[in-house]
Each structure stands twice: as structure tokens, then as C-alpha cells.
């Protein structure tokens, strides 16, 4: 019976559960078996709690048997990036400094998922504190790409992407500070949605760059992404940057109607902008992937127009100034006193320095040093203030373009996933983020979608960017693009 259920689709698995075709315990066992089989190779999950998952599944089955009204996500089992709090479970941000730390409360996003009866299957590997583009900067070892285990999964939400694609969970949450949902989605071949800054509460998300961070969704199709997204874009009183623009509760049926509705019913303009001058560095396959997406959009009766986003060339500089400045402040709380690991020292300063020296990985240390330098007396105006002003110029440029266009079409990365260990120069690594960081700087929503395969069978994706709070339009056009591309990603691959 369970062979006929599409475990990779939120709508399919929750419908099968609601109809009584399968029990929650059976669904949980399906994923746990997949994890047992594949996780030793892929390292998508860094913390599992099978007893808790199975116990919660039994309780759900009991409630269903009693005829209780169940939430819209009953039957879905989600993987959660290891920087988002699930009460009682480990939150280590894949860092040694938080070894053994247990979340004392649910992140707001988790609480909303829980209130809809979604269950949680484990925490997912990431670059330490979100700092990286490959998930190689993890104290728990790298996550491997499900399509080629010699290649990286992308990062920093590499575990969230690899786990979803390998069928180890129904969908997952990641976080996106500079592309950390979209890049692994593109490298692994799933959908990745980064909502507008403030759309989803950040309460219970361990902070990296507070003006950039946003919780996002990774799933195997747009419809699943929409269901999880609309469940987490919900009220919060604990995050002062939450936008208080909750999504009206959308059921699977409502989303299906919304996503499958013809695009011409949308009351927006039909122009998609492409910043062609930024595409010079693309590999030929990444370029043809973008052209393929553009031609599908034309068939969906969009007009393609060249747009000027020349300031995106400065985005990496702006981003690495602001993100490291924010990180150096945010990570000062990890001092060996209040959380996680402590290395004792002769004095209090010695304790701080030894604890942080021993427990932070090299990339985190590099970013703290850079951020502290940028904020130090004498350099703050030249770096931090100039970068903030440049950020505003970039936002104004995006605003101008999005007055003319409904969407902007951009690559996610310049290439497909590359071999583990190939990117060992920090600057080269940072340059990977060219196409993703600018949307975080501007606070805009973006969706990454798989479009094609490379000659060596690795996925290639594109991203669509819209004006603030237009996630529903992104999901709508994303769904039509997904149907047009018909990539036929095998969902259960190994």
C-alpha cells in the first residue's frame, strides 16, 4: 500500500494519512528507514530523535482513531535545519560551541507547524552558524550531494536540501542569509523559497546576520513548498522584525486551485527582467538553463526584457561587510559562560579566548575577525556606513526594476555542484554567492527551481525574484514553470 504513496509530496502524504490509507507510524518508519539507509553516506541529518518522532506519530494515530479534528499537515514529517529551535531537541548550528545544547522552546515557525500537526524527524546539517556555501564548514562533517556523493550539496542549508531530495523527509526548513536555501536547492535539485524579510518570524532561529536572515522552505515541488510556507508565515509577537502580514490559512485544495489557475488571471504585468550583463561568468550549461527557463516563460506569454541591476556587482562586498559585522556582534553571546562548551582558563578573558578559539571553526573565526575589524574605530565609516548606503542604492535599483517587471529571472549559481574540497580559497567561495546575496540585501522574496540536468547528471536551477510580499505570485508562476519543464526528477534516487 505504502508503495503507491508519494512520500515526497506534502499534499499526497497528508491526504493519504487523512483518508486512513496509511498510519503516521508507518510514514515515520518509511522515512526512518530511508535515513538509516542513506544518511551514513549523505550526512543530511546531524541529529535524529526517532523515539520522539515515533511517539508523536503514535499519538497522532490515536487522535485520528478517536475521530479528533487534525491539522492540515498531519502526516507530514519535516526535517529542520539545525539552527531552528525544536523544543527539547538539540540545536547545535553544526558548531562545537553548542555541543549538547537543547532548545528550551519552539521557534515560532516550528510552533505553527506543530499546531497544524506536522511532526519532526530530525535536525539537518549545515555550515556552522550558516557561514558557508557548501555545508563543508560543519563540525559534523560535510553533507554530500545525493546525485554525486563526491560533490557538495551547497550550503548553508545543505542537509535540508539533500534530505528532501533523497526522500528522507516530506519537506524541510532552512534559513537564507545570503542564498543558503536557494543555493543548496539548486545544487541538489529541489525547490527553495526564501520569503520576504519579515514574512516569517525569526524567533527561535539562531541569528547570523539579523538584517538578512529569513527562514525558508525546501521541498520537492512547488505545491509542497506553498503548503509549508503558508503554515510558517504566521503571527508572532516575539520577533520585532516580523511583518505582521500573515498568510490566510490555505488548505492543500485551496493552494492547488491557486497554483493551477491560469497565469493570465493574475492582475500584474507580464514582463520578466533578466540582467544579461551579469551573466558573463556563467558556465555554458548554467547559461543554457537560464535561456531554457526564459523560453518557457515566453511560452507562458511573458515578455523578456533586459534590466539594469549593475549594482549587483557590488553585492558580495556589501554583503560580506554587513553580514560579518552583524555576525561578530551576534556571536559574541557564545562565550563559554551561558551555553554549550567551556574551556577553562586562568582568567575570564583566557576562558573566553580559549573557549572560542577551540570551539569555533575556521570560517566562523574568519568572519568574526572581519566583522570586528569593520566595526572598529577608524574603519566603521569607510566600511560599515558606506556599505549600508550602498545597500540602499541597491534596494533602489531593485525597486526601479520591479516597477517595470513582475519578476526578475536570475541564475542561482555559476555552475553545478562542484567536488568536495575544490573551493578552498575563502574569496573564491564568497564569489559563489554573486546571484543570491543581493536579494537578502534588498529583503526580497525569491524562489529557486530545478530546470535542467548537466552532462554529468547534476541538477541546474534558476531563481525568480519579485517585489516584497509577492510570494504567492512566485509560487504561482513557479508551479507553471515546473509543469512546463517537466523535469521528471526521480524522487527516490538511491
Amino acid at each position, binding site marked *: 500500500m505504502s508503495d503507491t504513496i508519494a512520500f515526497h509530496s506534502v499534499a499526497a502524504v497528508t491526504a493519504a494519512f487523512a483518508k486512513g490509507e496509511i498510519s503516521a507510524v508507518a510514514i515515520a518508519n518509511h522515512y526512518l528507514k530511508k535515513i538509516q539507509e542513506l544518511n551514513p553516506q549523505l550526512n543530511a541529518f546531524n541529529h535524529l530523535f526517532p523515539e520522539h518522532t515515533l511517539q508523536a506519530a503514535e499519538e497522532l494515530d490515536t487522535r485520528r482513531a478517536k475521530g479528533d479534528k487534525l491539522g492540515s499537515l498531519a502526516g507530514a514529517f519535516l526535517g529542520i535545519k539545525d539552527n531552528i529551535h525544536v523544543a527539547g531537541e538539540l540545536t547545535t548550528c553544526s558548531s562545537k560551541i553548542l555541543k549538547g*545544547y537543547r532548545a528550551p522552546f519552539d521557534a515560532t515557525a516550528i510552533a505553527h507547524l506543530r499546531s497544524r500537526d506536522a511532526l519532526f524527524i530530525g535536525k539537518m546539517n549545515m555550515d556552522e552558524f550558516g557561514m558557508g556555501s557548501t555545508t563543508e564548514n560543519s563540525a559534523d562533517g560535510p553533507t554530500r550531494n545525493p546525485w554525486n556523493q563526491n560533490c557538495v550539496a551547497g550550503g548553508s542549508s545543505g542537509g535540508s536540501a539533500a534530505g528532501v531530495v533523497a526522500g528522507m523527509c516530506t519537506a524541510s526548513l532552512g534559513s537564507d542569509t545570503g542564498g543558503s536555501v536557494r543555493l543548496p536547492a539548486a545544487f541538489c535539485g529541489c525547490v527553495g523559497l526564501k520569503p520576504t524579510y519579515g514574512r516569517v518570524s525569526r524567533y527561535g532561529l539562531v541569528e547570523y546576520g539579523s538584517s538578512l536572515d529569513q527562514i525558508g522552505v525546501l521541498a520537492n515541488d512547488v505545491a509542497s513548498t506553498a503548503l509549508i510556507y503558508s503554515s510558517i508565515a504566521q503571527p508572532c509577537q516575539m520577533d520585532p522584525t516580523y511583518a505582521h502580514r500573515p498568510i*490566510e490559512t490555505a488548505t492543500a485544495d485551496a493552494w492547488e486551485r491557486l497554483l493551477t489557475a491560469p497565469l493570465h488571471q493574475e492582475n500584474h504585468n507580464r514582463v520578466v527582467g533578466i540582467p544579461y550583463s551579469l551573466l558573463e561568468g556563467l558556465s555554458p550549461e548554467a547559461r543554457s538553463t537560464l535561456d531554457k527557463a526564459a523560453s518557457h516563460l515566453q511560452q507562458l506569454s511573458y515578455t523578456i526584457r533586459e534590466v539594469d541591476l549593475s549594482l549587483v556587482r557590488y553585492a558580495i562586498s556589501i554583503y560580506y*561587510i554587513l553580514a560579518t559585522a552583524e555576525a561578530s556582534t551576534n556571536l559574541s553571546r557564545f562565550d563559554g559562560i551561558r551555553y554549550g562548551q*567551556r574551556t577553562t582558563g586562568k582568567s575570564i578573558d583566557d576562558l573566553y*579566548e580559549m573557549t572560542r578559539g577551540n570551539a569555533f571553526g575556521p570560517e566562523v573565526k574568519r568572519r568574526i*575577525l572581519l566583522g570586528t575589524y569593520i566595526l572598529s574605530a577608524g574603519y566603521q565609516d569607510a566600511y560599515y556606513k558606506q556599505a549600508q548606503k550602498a545597500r540602499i542604492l541597491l534596494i533602489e535599483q531593485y525597486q526601479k526594476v520591479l516597477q517595470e517587471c513582475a519578476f526578475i529571472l536570475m541564475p542561482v549559481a555559476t555552475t553545478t555542484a562542484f567536488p568536495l574540497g575544490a573551493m578552498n580559497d575563502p574569496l573564491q567561495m564568497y564569489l559563489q554567492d554573486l546571484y543570491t546575496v543581493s536579494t537578502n*540585501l534588498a529583503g526580497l522574496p525569491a524562489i529557486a527551481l530545478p530546470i535542467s540536468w548537466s552532462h554529468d547528471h547534476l541538477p541546474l536551477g534558476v531563481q525568480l525574484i519579485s517585489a516584497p510580499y509577492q510570494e504567492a505570485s512566485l509560487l504561482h508562476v513557479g508551479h507553471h514553470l515546473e509543469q512546463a519543464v517537466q523535469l521528471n526528477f526521480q524522487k527516490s534516487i538511491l
Partner: protein
Amino acid sequence: MQEQELRQLAHLCRIHFEEEQLPTLASGIQKLLDYVQQIQELDTSSITDYTHPFESWILQKNLLADAPVVSLGDQSSIDQANAYSREQFLANTPDQIAGMVRVPNMQ
């Protein structure tokens, strides 16, 4: 970046580095600083006063909100569930004594 400057910076960050790590680290940080210098090319004189980079667009949109006024009833139960105890807090600290966090002698 000179090694002495890096040593001072590392102390500001409260991160211990071994002496032999410093030369590579200094040249790595210098390379990144050289790269991000490119923002100096930008003429930002048109941007004068601001309180938040999002104020002109995203935040203003929130203020103008066409979004419905939300009942927060649902949320308060979530906040309630999230209240946590001294024991839960202390469970995450590296060292405790008599229900408090133990810290080294400050002298």
C-alpha cells in the same frame, strides 16, 4: 594587515589563535578587505539620513499595510508554551552551582 594588528583584533574578538596561524590568517583577511574595497567606488552622496535600509520600501509597505489586522489569540498560547524554567535554562549552561551559573573567579 600586520601580525601585531591581527593579534590585537583577535583579542578584541576574544578568540585564541596559535602564533603559527597568524601569517596565513592575516594575508587571508587582507585579501578579503582588498576585495570589499570596491564599494569605495560607489557615489553614495545621495543617501543622507536613514534609520534602516528597508525603510523606503519594505517597512513603509508594512505601515501602509493592506494586510488584515490579525488576532493574536492563537499566538498567546504559543508564548505560554514557550515559557521555560530555571532548570531548563541551567541545563544548557556549562557549569552550575546552587541553581546558578558558575563563573571563574574574577579577582
